[in-house]
């Protein structure tokens, strides 16, 4: 493996300084992706900055606006078991998405911050939940960006660390549905929805994020409009060019799956709606 040096700082400031001081240095949460990349020699990393010893980055808190503040090195297993998360509107959707990860051992090590950067099932769920990120970098610099914008290309920069994932309070209900590729069990297509229902059960507003295929998780407005249209009152959403083809599935097939899975996810969210 092409790894030259490693450090596990005790404070966030030390970690940020280490990242700033060594060009090409990388922050590490659980490390699954980085370690695999290094084994494949896809990366040569001069310095790994392990965030695993930063207690300040771990755990779930209630935010000032009533939402959730999730430390970026909280493991996926701890996230879905957390009483604050389970008791919130985000609990069901995050548990659905976490179950799509390969296995318990991965959920025990994988972190929320790593799952955001990976851009798969959990990232789609966080986009549907309108989650934001708090990033820090050396020299006390700090910025906030949504998960959606981050995955659309707005970072993180090499010396930036995701310190927290912030999920705003809302009354929307969430659910996640996917179809797994049978061999590797990764999602051919996954759909996360965050829906508010009107009295009587009709869809009020709906936020839809998808994953699967070469690109990272992203919002799909055409699916949102279709989900919010009255049943039988909308044409099938047009998804030309929304999904890419690869050696596993065509973009056309993924688009078909996305339409079906969106309907299923809305139904599942409706079953969860307390009203």
């Amino acid at each position, binding site marked *: 493996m092409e790894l030259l040096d490693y450090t596990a700082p005790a404070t966030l400031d030390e970690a940020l300084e280490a990242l700033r001081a060594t060009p090409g240095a990388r922050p590490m949460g659980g490390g699954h992706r980085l370690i695999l990349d290094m084994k494949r020699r896809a990366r040569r990393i001069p310095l790994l900055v392990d965030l695993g010893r930063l207690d300040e980055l771990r755990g779930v808190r209630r935010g000032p606006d009533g939402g959730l503040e999730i430390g970026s090195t909280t493991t996926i297993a701890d996230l879905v078991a957390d009483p604050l998360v389970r008791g919130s509107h985000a609990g069901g959707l995050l548990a659905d998405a976490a179950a799509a990860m*390969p296995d318990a051992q991965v959920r*025990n090590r994988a972190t929320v911050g790593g799952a955001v950067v990976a851009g798969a099932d959990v990232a789609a769920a966080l986009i549907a939940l309108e989650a934001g990120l708090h990033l820090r970098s050396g020299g006390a610099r700090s910025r906030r960006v949504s998960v959606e914008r981050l995955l659309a290309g707005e970072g993180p920069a090499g010396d930036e660390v995701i310190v927290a994932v912030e999920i705003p309070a809302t009354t929307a209900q969430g659910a996640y549905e996917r179809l797994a590729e049978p061999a590797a069990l990764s999602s051919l297509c996954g759909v996360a929805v965050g829906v508010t229902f009107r009295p009587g059960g009709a869809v009020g507003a709906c936020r839809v994020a998808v994953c699967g295929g070469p690109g990272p998780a992203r919002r799909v407005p055409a699916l949102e409009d279709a989900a919010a249209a009255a049943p039988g009152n909308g044409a099938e959403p047009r998804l030309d060019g929304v999904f890419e083809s690869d050696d596993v599935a065509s973009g056309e097939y993924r688009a078909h799956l996305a339409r079906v899975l969106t309907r299923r996810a809305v139904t599942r969210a409706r079953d969860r709606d307390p009203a």
Partner: protein
Amino acid sequence: MRITLTVNGDRVEQDVPPNVLLVDLLRDTCDLTGAKVGCDTGQCGTCVVRLGDRSVKSCQMLAVQADGAEVTTVEGLSGDGELTPLQEALWEEHGAQCGFCVPGMVMSLTDLLEHDSAPDEQAIRAGIAGNLCRCTGYGAVVRAVQKAVKDKS
């Protein structure tokens, strides 16, 4: 880098380069060969050990990440020559064919049973989702866990 960890109750102090995997430290330095390197890509689960109170894939972790941690391998689950009730049930239900996957299966299932004392079949199968058996002996493994759960209640 100098690291100190506890392996099966014993203190281990060792100089390791940063690119050494936890599984290689356990096998090559600690001489504990229960955890194996099957696929080296995190899919097969033959390398599963316990870190703290959770099962992890030790080929997906650097040894330096385990500095200060408590690690338990299959060798540390019970006394010398003794079997845990889960291992006993695997023995009785023929849960091992060639046996290569069994240490990993045992560690994953021990974690499952510690966090869920009465898993149903679906939960048992989800509990070994990260463990591949090339002999495809999953049915016997599931029956063994069901037996261990039943015997305990």
